[in-house]
């Protein structure tokens, strides 16, 4: 069965410190991997994606993610968080290429920033 796991419901990081949000996936074939962010009372916003090529993907707002096939992981990182990064982060996978491919989401990780 295709699935995405985010083991941490919540992470708390001091402003200016680095951030890692963990994600593992289970899908047959070559996965298409994504990170989305949801700010309070807003829709899901696309951050970045991995389709093929370089395993380190850079996205919006200084975020990046590293695809590690051997670990079935796609962790989200940011070198230095800002208070405005407080939001919920969703890892997601599209199980291979097909037209109008659905996205399977993880359960989300809520990021809170301490001063």
């Amino acid at each position, binding site marked *: 069965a295709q699935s995405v796991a985010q083991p941490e419901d919540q992470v708390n990081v001091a402003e200016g410190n680095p951030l890692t949000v963990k994600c593992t996936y289970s899908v047959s074939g070559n996965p298409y991997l994504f990170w989305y962010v949801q700010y309070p009372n807003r*829709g899901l916003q696309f951050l970045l994606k991995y389709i093929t090529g370089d395993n380190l993907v850079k996205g919006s707002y200084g975020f990046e993610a590293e695809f590690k096939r051997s670990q079935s992981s796609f962790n989200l990182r940011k070198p230095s968080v800002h208070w405005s990064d407080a939001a919920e982060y969703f890892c997601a996978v599209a199980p291979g290429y097909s037209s109008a491919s659905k996205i399977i989401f993880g359960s989300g990780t809520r990021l809170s920033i301490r001063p």
Partner: protein
Amino acid sequence: EPEVTQTPSHQVTQMGQEVILRCVPISNHLYFYWYRQILGQKVEFLVSFYNNEISEKSEIFDDQFSVERPDGSNFTLKIRSTKLEDSAMYFCASEGTGVGEQFFGPGTRLTVL
């Protein structure tokens, strides 16, 4: 920047009533989706739509659900006879290329009483 819009932002209805949730996708996009998120749970895929027909649907998307693109701009989700368990946030999304970057609307919170 173009964005997906959804109306209404909040819909309250009585069990058994029909509801129509409306979405205006990004204008040059070709692929359209509905997802839902029950409070405290994951975002779940409901249905995808391309070339005026359903491409894929989940087990959740039973005979009570239907989608339509009536006029080339709107994309609607209809629930014919709502149940309490249909209470959720419903997200519309659209995509231009058919793989990857789906753009989501802000959602409609449906409350079934």
